[in-house]
């Protein structure tokens, strides 16, 4: 089977890299695509103990039941999207195995598990320094309070960003840099990428 193309394949090709990447003119904002992650869309009853326990066994972590929070398991992260709706993100490698064990876990139940991996991607924004320029870039596209006190790691938010539906996932990386992952639908990825690239010039004084 041929190699799949990520939603930002053409950006990567134009940049001569394996995956799309970008550094703002002043260096304060870094951006890259995390292609081919596992994106699994799970629906099920939150009051069904069997559903919760079997999914927990498959993922290695309990489904978060608090709105707009995330849980981290062995396989990856789980995002609360709604009272009966979760988004499971896994690393590119091993994505088939996670899907398989989840399918097994919900088999025969009133639940819906859909592999949305081909239709989604993640754009990662990394803020150098105090992260303010990176946050300002995101602030120009969305109305949420992104201050780390109000939107700390462990939270997620579904919102409209630059007229595009995205899910935001803040984190602090190993170098203590603020970062935020944007889960975006495939057909909007190119628009969002170009919008972020163009906007980055305005927030770090570089352009």
């Amino acid at each position, binding site marked *: 089977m041929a190699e799949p193309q990520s939603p930002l394949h*053409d950006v990567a090709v134009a940049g001569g890299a394996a995956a799309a990447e970008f550094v703002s003119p002043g260096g304060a904002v870094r951006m890259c695509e995390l292609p081919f992650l596992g994106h699994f869309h799970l629906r099920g009853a939150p009051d069904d103990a069997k559903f919760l326990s079997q999914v927990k066994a498959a993922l290695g972590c309990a489904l978060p039941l608090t709105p707009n929070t995330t849980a981290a398991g062995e396989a990856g992260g789980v995002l609360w999207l709604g009272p009966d709706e979760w988004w499971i993100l896994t690393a590119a490698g091993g994505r088939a195995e996670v899907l398989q064990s989840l399918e097994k876990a919900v088999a025969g139940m009133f639940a*819906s598990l859909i592999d949305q991996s081909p239709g*989604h991607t993640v754009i990662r924004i990394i803020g150098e320094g105090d992260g303010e320029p990176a946050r300002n870039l995101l602030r120009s596209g969305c109305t*949420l309070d992104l201050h780390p006190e109000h939107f700390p790691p462990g939270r997620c938010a579904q919102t409209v960003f630059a007229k595009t539906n995205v899910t935001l996932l803040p984190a602090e990386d190993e170098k203590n840099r603020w970062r935020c992952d944007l889960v975006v639908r495939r057909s909007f990825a190119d628009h969002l990428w170009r919008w972020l690239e163009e906007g980055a*010039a305005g927030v770090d004084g570089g352009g």
Partner: protein
Amino acid sequence: MSYPSQGRRLPEGGLIDRGSPLLFHFNGRTCSGYAGDTLASALLANGVTLVGRSFKYHRPRGIVGSGAEEPNAIVQVGEGALTVPNMRATQTELHKDLVAASVNAWPGVSFDLAAAAGGLAKILPLMPAGFYYKTFMWPQSFWRHYERIIRKAAGLGRAPGAPDPQRRDKINIHCDVLVAGGGPAGLAAALAAGRCGARVILADEQFIFGGSLLPGDAAIDRRPARDWVGRAVDELRAMKRVRLLPRTTVCGYFDHNFLSLLERMPGQPLAERLWRVRARRVVLAAGAIERPLVFPNNDRPGVMLASAVSQYVRRYAVRPGTCGALFTNNDSGYTAVLDLLDNGISVAGVVDPRTTVHGPLPGRVRERGVKIHTGCVVTNVAGRRRVRGVQVMTLSQAGNTVTGKAATLQCDLLAVSGGWSPAVHLHAQSGARPVFDESRACFVPGESVQAEQSAGAANGVFDLAACLAEGHAAGAAAAAAAGFSAAGGGEAPSAEPAEQAPLMPLWLAPAPPGHGKRFVDYQNDTDAADLQLAVRENYRAMEHVKRYTALGFGTDQGKLGNINGMAIVAAETGAGIAATGTTTFRPPYTPLAFGALAGRERGQFFDPLRKTAIHQWHVDHGAEFENVGQWKRPWFYPRPGERMVDAVNRECLAARGAVGILDAGTLGKIDVRGPDAAEFLNRIYTNAWDKLKIGACRYGLMLGEDGMVMDDGVTARIAEDRFHMTTTTGGAAHVLAWMERWLQTEWPHLRVFLTSVTERWATVSLAGPRSRAVMETLCGGIDFAAAAFPLMAFRDGTVAGIAARVFRISFSGELCYEVNVAAGHGRALWDACMEAGAVHGITPYGTETMHVLRAEKGYIIVGQDTDGSVTPMDLGMEWILSKKKDFLGKRSLSRPDCVRKDRKQLVGLRTMDPQEVLPEGAQLTDSRIVSRPAPMVGHVTSSYYSACLKHSIALALVKGGRARMGGTVYAPLVDGRTVAAEVCSPVFYDPEGAKQNG
């Protein structure tokens, strides 16, 4: 470089950088100023006193104020694409090579045709109050003449003619405390809130903080106030949670403590930024605007607010005149006299209507030997293009007339002060109502309706010591309300309380008979007589008077004149000022460019462009695109030298004769899953779904509750409890939301999950007699024989080695396969199809060919052949309406209007001339020659040239259409011709369906 001398610049002082001279151009004249100047202060330094002409009378006008209130110095700044109309020179920061011109003077300020003729009032005789109502309403046909003259004569600036080359952006920000205004109260508030640990934004419209402290010589904490401002700003800057925004106007206050701020960054790559702030608490410390006085010929250039005189003399080191006078009804105005005297400018006298004038400030003026004409008012101003002197008369005992012999003061500058109006604009925008305070004779903030508090002069507190205390308390209280301990706010800054005698309200100075015009609104030339006339004509509500007289209609929104105007109306009606009230304060506080609101959302970022997984191939192969919803879809693929019609004809013939290939990835796809999925579809669609076999597909029609066609598509049964629904490209989001609404609000007991999977799949459609051959080359594990894989079935297998689901469905009437693969493999699939199809003449086709092919088959497009007023019966689709079950919209279909015999019905049209293609949207009539208005019997919904059939085809909705088969209708065209067409079946091609079933 040589700089023109600034003849009116004081030798020293001011907050200007004399080391940074700047050249600029005003009305074609090259002038020089300094960094730290505004355009207005630089113009005064260059002796420019005439800056515009008034709107109605074209009277010469000069600079009146020093900030947002300025009504006269309205200028066009910049050239070409960068030009900005209607800027206030008093708020325009001077920069190198600034180019500005008066907006309200045609053809020029000094030589003005309209003024030569006596103003617009002479060109258009009689322009009293209600001029617009009285004149423009009748005769209506004359409006175009009035308009042409008025637009040109009135000026009002030019919009740029080219796209904006500047970068503008928006930013959304949240804070605990937003402080609007960086004067003494605002700085004290920001300091207190910031020290408490709150997230604070402090915005001020000027390029430096300090507000009223900038020109003054006050002391704070026993040191010069300017030093305190510097220390305060330094302290705030050092706080990580405080954001200082100079050059930023808080321009709008909306619901839920949402405010918009416009930040200007002249000379920066980012020219402007609109801050969209969501604040937990707001402190309004916007200061106050000095009121002018209303007396005869009070619009002469050289009549200036007393506070503006102080600003120009002390902050900008400019001499606004050579000999001044003051007309004031309060003590604060006397500051201007002291400022003039301190800088070597003589003062001819002070005119004060109060009979006893005491207090420290007038006392100091008296000590300097300036005569105070107590109990007097100014009754005339001499001079036309510049004040030459003022006439002074004594107020009568009752205070409503003037008596005695007029005295004259020789001067070329008249400072005026009628008291102060707190800038309650933002408070009022927040939904609160300012109330009139009789003791202070001004409108002050009323009860708050949002989480805001006014402080300082904006709250009617004019004494510096009180301003500082109130600002500090407001900042600490706001921080506490936002959840911080107010104890951290520290000490409030202190100042010596100053004693001021009360002002004497003087809304309209009495004048002798035959007096000149007493202007209230300079920008709109509204004078006191206009307001009085409006009241005599029974306009009593302030909002009506405003519209009748144009009071406050200018770009300054009446910041200067409105309060005087309201008081004059109140006196005339006898209702009192409190009952008369203000007009509505609307955002923005000062004008802003549309570009600031648009930000980056223009051009390619106006709306998202959605791209399919195969997009780049289409680009590389020269496709022309069309927008379908937000999607970019290939429209047609012209070869070199081909016109659109050539390309479409070629693509159509290829699909009919061999095989065409279409990127169909944009179709909406929804996964419908759960034990009640079939029952759910029964309710959503008009036809029945329980009996659909696994592996089979069915066409479905969705109706709105009104019974009108809403969407259509093919849905396949993947498993007992699982369906794959397709929707129209543009309707996908709406259909999902529609179904979710029913599921969540009306049928929560149905166990169904709906999930959009549009993005998950790439879809490639192969249509044409050779499509089977191409599929057979590419596929393993699927039997493509007609019997094994019939129309309206799907099979899972691999195509070109890629896991695929192949649907045999047809929107073209041809043998057709739609191949769905994981989106990431869409491009590989497409490439493999192109390669395998090469020997069969595979031809990519776009949406235009798709439309022609389906129209040849009479297949509708929802939204093109339907418009929300079309039932399934109108389309001849009764066959799809189940009689055995209920479905959304069913009940509406039996409404009398839905079963009328003369409803418009879908038919085909064949033009008598086979080459004539009717325009879509063309109206149809019953006869060739019609009288106007013609009775219309229908309209064309789709129309194309069919290369395959070698004649034009059209679909139309025609009244009682199905009973008119074989009859003729006529389409009168815009070009004057009338085209005749025969009514026929909407199915033009292969009515038996042999091709798609083959």
